């Protein structure tokens, strides 16, 4: 487990998102340092301590496979190394009764160097009425995460969506194709480097840029 604090976000300069126009506000020199996150310290509170203990007992590679355990806002997030994801999910399903997986949500952190793409799996135990979140991060250069379809068949479409939107490749998925975008689409739209699109709107001689190109607060 890592104890160092790190941030998936980058530092932000200036008060406004888009820098194209001259910033006369006087806030151009503002630097907002990225917030950092680290492993939470025990006791975690709620059922989280027992859950972490049970997982440590049942999962032999706990030391290598679990990167961080974060308790924030009453929710438990277990950061898992991609290599161990299937083993952790199997343990959670078979030994800790997390029989339900609510899909996967991708997040793109371009400033989290070496781990730009995150996949977030909310799990639910109906037997024990508990929730836990698994988070896996992989580098953009090698975006491979093992598929959970064998363990949670309902993740089939969710993984296809995350592939479609972020370009994360789920190894072992039975048919990893695009699901929402057309089959011949180029690029992965939910990534931060993918433009929102939209066209400038002309109004009485002046032009309003597309929403993603407008100066806006951060």
């Amino acid at each position, binding site marked *: 487990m890592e104890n160092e604090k790190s941030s998936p976000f980058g530092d932000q300069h200036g008060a406004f998102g888009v820098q194209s126009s001259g910033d006369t506000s006087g806030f151009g020199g503002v630097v907002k340092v990225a917030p950092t996150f680290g492993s939470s310290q025990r006791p975690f509170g709620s059922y989280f301590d027992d859950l972490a203990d049970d997982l440590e007992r049942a999962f032999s590679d706990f030391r290598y496979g679990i990167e961080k355990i974060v308790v924030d806002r009453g929710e438990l997030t277990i950061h898992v190394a991609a290599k161990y994801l299937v083993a952790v999910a199997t343990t959670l399903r078979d030994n800790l009764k997390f029989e339900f997986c609510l*899909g996967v949500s991708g997040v793109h952190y371009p400033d989290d160097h070496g781990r730009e793409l995150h996949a977030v799996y*909310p799990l639910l135990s*109906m037997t024990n009425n508990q929730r836990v979140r698994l988070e896996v991060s992989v580098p953009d250069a090698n975006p491979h995460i093992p598929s959970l379809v064998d363990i949670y068949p309902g993740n089939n479409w969710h993984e296809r969506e995350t592939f479609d939107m972020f370009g994360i490749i789920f190894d072992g998925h039975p048919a990893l194709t695009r699901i929402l975008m057309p089959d011949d689409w180029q690029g992965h739209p939910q990534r931060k480097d993918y433009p929102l699109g939209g066209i400038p709107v002309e109004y009485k001689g002046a032009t309003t840029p597309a929403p993603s190109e407008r100066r806006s607060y951060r």
Partner: protein
Amino acid sequence: MSQSNLYNDYASSRETTEGRIYDVTGSDWDSLVNEIGASKEERVVVNMGPQHPSTHGVLRIILELEGETVKEARAGIGYLHTGIEKTTEFRTWTQGVTLVTRMDYLAPIFNETAYCLAVEKLLNITDQIPEKASVIRVMMMEFNRISSHMVALGTGALELGALSPMIFAFREREKVLDIFEMFTGLRMNMAFVRPGGVAQDVPEGGIEKVRETVKYLRKNFKDNADLLIGNSIWVARTKGIGYLDLAGCTALGITGPVLRSTGLPWDLRKTQPYCGYENYDFDVVTTDSADVYGRFLVRMNELEQSLRIIEQCADKLEKLSGAPVMVEDKKIAWPAQLSVGADGMGNSLDHIREIMGTSMESLIHHFKLVTEGFRAPAGQAYAAVESPRGETGVHVVSDGGTKPYRVHFREPSFNNLQSVAAMCEGSMIADIIAAIASIDPVMGGVDR
């Protein structure tokens, strides 16, 4: 050859690398059957949709048939993808409500509430939401559950050839939409639930109107019940059809009425209460037949439970007259004081008078909050509500800015639609319609 020429104007055919393809547009089935009967292929691939009226919007089902038996069924989606999740990343937290309400357009209040619960978790203000705001949220959600179930029942029956239930169901739904219009100014996509509370207080005469509507609905729900429950044709079309047991539901991540039709009383309102659902007296409806008829009964009986909750909401609201409906924190409570005027919802005249006439600080504050918005502390949160179709889960990530870093909706329709193959393969082609109707997918939610 001469025979196929005779029908060329109808089911035209062409040779492709995939085999012979027929274009069928309706009323030309006879010619198609004649053509196919002559070919030696036993399996026929039929593309149903995406413009088929009984596929609930733009859903495409690819069927492999042997005679009238479905050997393989695959769903094709994405025809209504509008990139709402991406768009939220370029708007403030509050503006996000206006976007997410358009996802599952039959359950807008649920989208809004789930999103707001997640944002409130990010802001760490879950405990500060005023009681009255939660009561109004619960009441609106239950009304929305009724209107959504009415569409599910009405269109479901319509697709199986029963016209009258649809007429009655839409009549009842209209009454619910009247309530929405009175409370929010809009019939759908209201953007009524906001981070921190709800957009406005109960309008004058609102509670009386609610009581009147509950009375009306309770009396009129009987019409549909009398038409369908025990109706031998309806039973023949739905009983034992689209079977999916508890193990299947768990594996496929199915929630909502489909899960409850297997006998498992899993309802987030009871198991993981939010918005104060633990303070209401109601039952979780289940059946154990795990088929289309069972799901129909679950929805039918949930209507009465929703009415029970609404009555309790009305009682609570009477006692809470004059209580706030937004968090106290003026840095979050956006926008200030709305009211329904003759032309819909807008800023109340009192508020306009204050910011334009008496207080420059109020004007600055209003301007900053509306254009810049509030900042949510960095981190992530997941919130879930029991929508009419199952668990609507929202995963939000904030980098500490005024806009979401990522919003992801775990839409129950999207997930549940995966079960089409499990429910339909091996059944007759006509049963597919019944099975899909029992899943009740809304394509706006599926594709987002």
